[in-house]
């Protein structure tokens, strides 16, 4: 085998990282790659950088899967900057004085923020908006500032303005051009955008040319403009555009454009055949692409070309970079903004259609070709719903309907908006531009069984970066399922032609309280192991009656029927509630004594409770009688219900604790204990941001801050870990509980059967913003209703085990045999580490009929 190809990659930003992924996929061996990264951490999502201010950590933003850099033939050097290239010797010199030889060199150096040469720009508390370190410094300064100014009213500038606003600062945006987002938006759009941004409390100053920054009188700085006006501020963020990082290429005469950028060909090669440039530092056909999607495309092209140097059997002709579409859609400070293609109608003969509603603050512009047949571009402010349709029509050169203006006009009565028939899209149509996913790929994944948007995201990566294509992807999924003859339904099972959400609604609105009534009125047949527990769970969520009432008992699966967790050998485990993980020594001793007396295997759970294993059906009431007498309640470990609320010791004991996390955990656990839901619910409360209770891995988690409680939702550990997202911050106790009430009840109303909050959230159209609208802003106007429904459940709580052991009728069911008091002879335990464990089949065969540990009386 030949020597591996030595590759040096300069830069580990988003595009540099994409290159590594592409190379790893194409050539898992045969490459020897060294990556130089001048930042102290590997690649992170710069597109989502602003979410750092809403609670995302550097770790959340990371784009590097765990273990990625641990593979052979790949070395990452952090804090290592390339300082020189010697093209004749083919080696790179680093800031640490090392020289690295290469066969192929890739420059993915990105760009740097442009700071206008204004005197005073070097003053303290003047920032740029590019790296996590920049944001950390801004956060620090924000804490001791009252007023903040962003210089630059482009896309990034408005994001920075939102960050300042969120820090509670009086915020100004200063723009040199006559309008905001001058590149993407025209005058009309800029006006509406400005009104919307100002309505959010940000002051916009256009046509302002800063001439100097000096000491302020009331604030730290005074900015003086060319028109002699002055603005005083405590901190300044420069966001006045980007410039390519091409200094290495300049020094080694690789060819740069007149206004910067490393000149590349269609294979992303510079004029040196062994040196490539990709991303924001590259200049293709005189253009620099400051968006991530074209950068990713360059990474794919470059990786394919390098891989072709290590021949394998799949020797396809490597693809070429042929330019990229610069259309974008984003939400800026909650305002939808989209720009497509030729937004300024610069194409000769282009015709323009404009719709403005200043009352609703909506601006839409459609640019069509001279013959009126094709979309050339457009601008959408305030309502960007048409973006997906217009983009696909433009990119695929699809012929427009005869009256294209209806594409942007509001759909009044009777005038249905012509929707894009997804069938009309060609197979090659790129649906997700961030991850280059075509219609054909999405349809193939649907045919392979991805029948929910969550599964489709996992299978294809479509919609996993910016999320802009999710509505179109969903439309495609439904169309393809229909085409395959798959009924596009989420019917619970053959007995009910309804989704769980619909069934919930029918039960609540119709005040249905029994399964017989439900199936007579809305279903058919006798029910099954799918719909019966689902109905039982909804009855409990709505009416909260004793789950073992005679007409409910037959609906419960084994765990709920015996109020314990069935194990592989048919025995059960018992988990009493230990709210917040707090337990007195006396109660701890009781647990030990009960476990010892009944010979139960004892283990501490991940949720700060104690699990007792190995009880047979007939033992359960005996054990629970002793536990109830000692003051224990059911822990509902057997139910699709609230499980535990884990906590750290909080401010009571901990040096770092901000608030009393144990008291809050107790309050939450006692409030929601017994709450039945579509699936189990876990929670935790941490007393400070050190997060010892791991609240961000829970269905809902609470973290104390200096200003109150932060509420995180829809996290998950387990099979598919998902970090919880910040729903609301700095809450007082009462507001926190109100939001949790609403969040839980909304989940209970709308989730599918056995759908955890994390999957529910991934499938929720509108995502986190929608959830905030419902829970925090009460956009649906159901807040009070959800709270009342929760109040009913909370008010009717009763310990199920206490009720069970008080009912002779229920107790009679806890027998291994209806006609004998004998134990099940097939349950055999052996000793291991001084406790019992179930015997293996071999051990059972050996001990047949001679139980190693005899049944306790």
């Amino acid at each position, binding site marked *: 085998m030949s020597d591996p190809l030595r590759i040096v990659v300069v830069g580990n930003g988003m595009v540099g990282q994409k290159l590594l992924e592409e190379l790893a996929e194409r050539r898992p061996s045969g490459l020897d790659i060294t990556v130089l990264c001048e930042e102290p951490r590997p690649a992170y999502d710069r597109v989502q950088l602003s979410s750092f201010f809403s609670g995302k950590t550097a770790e959340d933003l990371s784009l590097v899967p765990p273990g990625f850099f641990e593979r052979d033939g790949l070395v990452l050097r952090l804090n290592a900057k390339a300082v020189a290239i010697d093209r004749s010797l083919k080696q790179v010199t680093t800031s640490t004085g090392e020289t690295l030889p290469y066969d192929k060199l890739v420059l993915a150096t990105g760009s740097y923020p442009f700071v206008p040469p204004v005197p005073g720009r070097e003053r303290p508390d003047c920032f740029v908006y590019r790296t996590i370190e920049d944001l950390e410094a801004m956060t620090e300064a924000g804490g001791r500032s009252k007023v903040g100014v962003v210089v630059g009213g482009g896309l990034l500038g408005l994001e920075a303005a939102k960050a300042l606003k969120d820090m509670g600062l009086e915020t100004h945006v200063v723009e040199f051009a006559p309008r905001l987002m001058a590149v993407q938006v025209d005058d009309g759009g800029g006006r509406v955008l400005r009104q919307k941004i100002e309505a959010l409390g940000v002051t916009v100053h256009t046509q302002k040319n800063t001439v100097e920054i000096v000491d302020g009188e009331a604030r730290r700085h005074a900015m003086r403009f060319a028109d002699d006006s002055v603005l005083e501020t405590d901190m300044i963020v420069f966001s006045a555009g980007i410039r390519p990082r091409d200094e290495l290429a300049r020094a080694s005469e690789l060819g740069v454009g007149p206004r910067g950028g490393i000149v590349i060909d269609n294979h992303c090669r510079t004029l040196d055949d062994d040196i490539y440039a990709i991303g924001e530092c590259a200049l293709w056909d005189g253009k620099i692409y400051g968006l991530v999607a074209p950068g990713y495309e360059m990474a794919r092209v470059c990786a394919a070309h390098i891989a072709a140097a290590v021949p394998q059997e799949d020797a396809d002709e490597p693809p070429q970079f042929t330019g990229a579409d610069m259309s974008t859609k984003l939400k800026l400070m909650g305002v939808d903004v989209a720009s497509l293609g030729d937004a300024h109608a610069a194409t000769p003969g282009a015709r323009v259609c404009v719709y403005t509603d200043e009352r609703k603050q909506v601006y839409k512009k459609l640019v069509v070709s001279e013959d009126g047949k094709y979309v050339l571009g457009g601008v959408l402010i305030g309502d960007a719903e048409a973006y997906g349709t217009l983009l696909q029509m433009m990119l695929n050169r699809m012929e427009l309907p005869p009256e294209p203006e209806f594409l942007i006009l509001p759909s009044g009565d009777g005038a249905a908006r012509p929707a894009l028939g997804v069938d009309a899209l060609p197979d090659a149509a790129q649906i997700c531009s961030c991850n280059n996913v075509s219609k054909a790929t999405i349809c193939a994944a649907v045919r392979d069984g991805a029948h929910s948007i969550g599964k489709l995201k996992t299978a294809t990566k479509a919609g996993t970066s910016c999320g802009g294509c999710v509505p179109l992807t969903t439309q495609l999924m439904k169309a393809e399922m229909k085409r395959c003859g798959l009924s596009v339904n989420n019917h619970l099972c053959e007995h009910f032609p309804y989704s769980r959400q619909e069934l919930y609604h029918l039960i609540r609105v119709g005040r249905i309280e029994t399964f017989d009534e439900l199936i007579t009125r809305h279903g058919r047949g006798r029910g099954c192991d799918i719909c019966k527990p689902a109905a039982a769970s909804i009855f409990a969520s709505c009416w909260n009656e004793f789950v073992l009432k005679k007409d409910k008992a*037959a609906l419960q699966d084994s765990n709920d029927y015996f109020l314990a967790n069935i194990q592989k050998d048919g025995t059960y485990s018992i988990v009493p509630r230990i709210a917040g993980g707090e337990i007195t020594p006396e109660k701890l001793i009781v647990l030990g004594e009960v476990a010892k007396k009944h010979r139960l295997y004892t283990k501490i759970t991940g949720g700060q409770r104690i699990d007792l294993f190995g009880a047979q059906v007939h033992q359960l009431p005996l054990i629970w009688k002793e536990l109830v007498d000692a003051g224990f309640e059911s822990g509902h470990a057997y139910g699709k219900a609230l499980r535990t609320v884990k906590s750290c010791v909080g401010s009571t004991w901990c040096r770092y604790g901000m608030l009393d996390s144990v008291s809050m955990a107790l309050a939450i656990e006692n409030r929601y204990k017994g709450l039945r839901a579509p699936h189990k619910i876990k929670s935790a409360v941490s007393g400070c941001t050190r997060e010892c209770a791991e609240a961000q891995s829970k269905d809902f988690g609470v973290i104390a801050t200096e200003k109150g409680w932060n509420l995180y939702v829809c996290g998950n550990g387990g099979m598919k870990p998902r970090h919880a997202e910040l729903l609301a911050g700095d809450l007082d106790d009462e507001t926190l509980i109100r939001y949790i009430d609403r969040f839980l009840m909304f989940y209970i109303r709308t989730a599918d059967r056995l759908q955890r909050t994390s999957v529910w959230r991934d499938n929720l159209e509108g995502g986190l913003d929608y959830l905030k609208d419902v829970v925090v802003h009460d956009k649906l106007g159901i807040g009070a209703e959800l709270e009342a429904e929760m109040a009913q459940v909370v008010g009717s709580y009763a310990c199920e085990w206490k009720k069970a052991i008080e009912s002779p009728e229920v107790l009679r069911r806890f027998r291994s045999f209806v006609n004998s008091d004998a134990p099940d002879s097939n349950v055999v335990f052996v000793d291991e580490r001084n406790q019992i464990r179930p015997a293996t089949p071999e051990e059972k065969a050996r001990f047949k009929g001679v139980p190693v540990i005899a049944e306790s009386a």
Partner: protein
Amino acid sequence: MDGSNMDGPSTDTGWTDVCAVDDIWPNTGVCALVEGCQVAVFRLVDDGQEQLFAIDNGDPFSDANVLSRGLVGNLGERLVVASPIYKQHFDLATGECVEDPGVSLRTWRVRVADGRVLIAA
């Protein structure tokens, strides 16, 4: 006590009286010991119509004696019980596993006399 030494009426040799019909809550099952074997006995009620079924209690997929604790219902025309361990369905009338027809459980004869449930091999 154990099924082979049962008291209570038996109208025929080979029939074991296991319990009263009312000892089995509608649409649930119980486990009875019959001649040393564990038998899952189910009482299905639909529109006032009563039906009793008896099959082995042992779940061949988990080797645990649990089928009497499964949920009953119908899949199409078949009346079934779902194993609480790995959720396979078994036909109550034939004992056949719906998901894996190669696997079949023994069925037992069952009848009611004077409000008592009688089981025979």
